[in-house]
């Protein structure tokens, strides 16, 4: 077990560096915080082969759209990813057992109230393999204003939120998604905010970013109902609910 902790810590460090390098190459003005992997992640053994990776609030300063000249959007994420070590697994030795990811998007208000933040989007992603009515992988849009401390600890920003848009959204809508663990979300941030038409260099760099985020294998392989009948070929979310 102890040796596996070293392996996992090293992998996290290597991939966190690669992630930061990719964001920097996609757009040099982008900022990713904190730079140190020990400040971004902590590894906790659950048993001899299972480890929980806690993602401390990590923050990104990105353009809202790839076409925007300068970054104008702050994204903060926290969560966890639990993996088991399987030496025989391919192409990665780390298999997901569970995850939970919270993401908050913020912008600085301009104009007369310029010293406040607008919370423009919030979502949490998780999975449930047993509860009826829960798609196995899903998201729920909701206010993530509690993450603002994770943002202001990395950037000099006001902490007051004067506009919390997601709080008005219906929180119990469970939208089926892919496995959006913290590293999937990082890939999404690069794709959403830095890749687009005419940005070939950034699009090519996305391949490297994806590779840096691909050191864990998803949970779907291990779930019988996602591998029964037509489910593995169909991809419709109707197959993503446990059978009672």
């Amino acid at each position: 077990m102890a040796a596996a902790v070293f392996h996992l810590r090293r992998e996290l460090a290597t991939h966190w560096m690669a992630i930061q390098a990719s964001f920097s190459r996609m757009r040099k003005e982008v900022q990713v915080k904190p730079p140190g992997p020990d400040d971004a992640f902590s590894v906790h053994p659950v048993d001899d082969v299972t480890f929980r990776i806690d993602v401390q609030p990590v923050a990104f300063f990105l353009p809202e759209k790839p076409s925007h000249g300068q970054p104008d959007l702050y994204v903060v994420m926290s969560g966890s990813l639990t993996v088991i070590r399987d030496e025989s697994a391919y192409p990665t030795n780390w298999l997901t057992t569970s995850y939970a990811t919270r993401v908050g998007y913020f912008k600085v208000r301009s104009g007369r109230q310029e010293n406040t933040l607008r919370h423009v989007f919030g979502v949490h992603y998780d999975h449930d393999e047993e509860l009826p009515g829960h798609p196995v992988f899903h998201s729920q849009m909701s206010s993530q204003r509690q993450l603002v401390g994770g943002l202001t600890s990395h950037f000099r920003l006001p902490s007051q939120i004067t506009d919390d848009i997601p709080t008005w959204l219906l929180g119990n809508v469970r939208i089926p998604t892919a496995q959006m663990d913290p590293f999937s979300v990082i890939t999404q941030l690069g794709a959403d905010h830095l890749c687009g038409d005419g940005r070939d260099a950034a699009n090519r760099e996305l391949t490297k970013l994806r590779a840096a985020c691909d050191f864990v294998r998803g949970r779907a392989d291990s779930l019988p109902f996602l591998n029964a009948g037509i489910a593995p070929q169909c991809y419709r979310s109707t197959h993503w609910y446990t059978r009672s």
Partner: protein
Amino acid sequence: MTDPNVLLLIDDDSDFLAELKEEVKRRLQGDGFVETWSPSRDEKPRDVLDAYIQDNVVLVVTDDDLTGNGLTGLFGATVVDWCQRKQVPVAIFSRRLTDDQRPDLFDMVVSASTAGTAAEEIVVTFEGFVKVWEVLSGTSLTELSGPAEAAAVALGDPQLESELALYTAKLFAANSVLGSIGATQSHDPDEHLRLLVYVVGHILRNVVLPYPGPIIGESVLGAYLCTTTEEAERLSAFFEEAGYIGPFAAGRTYWRDKVDDILASLAEGLDESTYETFPQFCRAIVERRLGRELARHECERCGGEYGGFFCPFTVRAVCRRDDCSVDTNSWIPQAADLTRTEREYFDEWQSFLGF
């Protein structure tokens, strides 16, 4: 580059220059040719320097004040400027100046309290540039994606490219020397090689080695294991297989991932979760193997119980506690993940030094 590789030493104090030359030659053991120049009143210094700087000059080291023999107006800074324009690595040495800790990519300062200590540092720098040259001259430069990949190749580990890219991310945009380099627009492959060696050598010597990340010295190893530098010196045999002998290795230096490999191989049976911090777990691995406790480093905040990180400004072990250190400042390269700034130093100097 034609052999032999040349090291040029410049000083107006001919006695010190002769002593320094002997100290350097003794350490080089024939692996290079040492030239000296003591500027005097009737010389045209620019012409003399141009005559000395041929293609095989690997490093120029100059005193800070060169006016002692009556050649007024010639200072080390002038030599540095001329050499940088030709992309020849140049270091300045002085009994007064100390090495600036700010990661300035192309500036090198050698501490010259004695000829011996100066020679030690000069030889490490000279041999470092020679090693980088040897590796890169055997590499297809057009296949490299940039200086970070070239630096990774020079270290013998292409996987380090991302980390090395982050080491340099803050530096290139602000460096005026690169402007003059770009202006040459040479298409000569030998010139391209010279430029790449110049850039990569400085990246490794000035930015990667001083700010601990993938490569660590003995003081950092001590901090990494929450113990003292003296204990780290005694552990040299323990970590021998992790030794780094690449470019610019000074004293005992280690690959951090190989240190981790050694620790991992000895860790079975210890439960990491019973230790408050991971560095304490690492120390316990070594202590169990040695059968004794390691000395605690001197820290008035924790009594040396914690550690894991190193502050290059105070040269002390620090930990992640808020009252001990801060994780980053604008001087620390992004990938130097074992480098933190001691809180007291940060609070005292941040408003003056632009952290």
